[in-house]
């Protein structure tokens, strides 16, 4: 998936304001409600068939760290 597309989908799925996440270094930490965590888990499964756990999510800080957890091979410019 294109990195930009991922950032847009993430913004949309987390129901953040457009542009709230505008690059890979955008901070995700602090944006997670309990529903937010479940949404991240569900979107990783849906878009990448990648299972991540609520425990894994604790170590996510930025959009990039989430992408790294999913696997950078899944993304391109």
């Amino acid at each position, binding site marked *: 998936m294109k990195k930009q597309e991922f950032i847009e989908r993430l913004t949309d*799925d987390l129901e953040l304001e457009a542009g709230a996440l505008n690059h890979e270094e955008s901070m995700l930490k602090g944006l997670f409600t309990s529903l937010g965590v479940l949404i991240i*888990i569900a979107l990783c499964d849906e878009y990448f068939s990648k299972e991540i*756990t609520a425990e894994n999510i*604790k170590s996510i800080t930025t959009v990039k760290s989430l992408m790294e957890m999913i696997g950078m091979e899944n993304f391109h410019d």
Partner: protein
Amino acid sequence: MDNPFSLSGKAILVTGASSGIGRQTCISISKMGGRVIATGRNEERLNGTLSMLAGNDHKLVRAELTDTNDMEALSGAVQGLNGIVHCAGIGKYIPSKFYKKEDLRRFNEINYEAPILLTSILLRKKKIIDNSSIIFISSIMSETGITGGGLYAGTKGALVAITRVIALELAAKKIRVNCISPALVKTPLIDHDEFRKEMETNLEKHPLGLGYPVDIANCCVFMLSDASKWITGTNLIIDGGYSAQ
């Protein structure tokens, strides 16, 4: 004096007997003198349960409850049941905008269809004798919501609703039908990565702390025994005070 809580002479079928609440329920039934027919999928874990039971008149039947043939075989392998505890179940948190047909089906198949169809087959084959007690393990989520728990809650609420109907239909035979609805109980179902965070956040919502399988098993013993012979069609909540708030 006769002990109304004794299960002596009673044969009880327990599903989900290979783990958690089901396993402990088998142990508690056996300690109260009951004979257990334990069913689950994983043979090794089922044997583990068997090794923990008091007495030796018990039986194991391996069955995948979503498989019609296994269900038939299970119903053929039992007779003269005085009680059933439907414990088998699955859980997963999924937010509502990510619901998928496959997930809905899987939840329904295991948490709702399997216990209802098994009960129906056993009734039809006259395997459940008069004055018996049927228990469905529902969940506190049949009464209260938890973010992400929708698909699970739907199946558990459905059990509570159908329980009242089956209870009415079987009352003439003095067969009692009830749900038991626990809040968080420390079992393999919730004691893993995905749920750990949920457990931490939910701990403080349980005034008496998290539950243990034996807390549920003891209520099953009561509901299976003659001590509860005037209780039918209910949903017994066991939640350490979770819903008192």
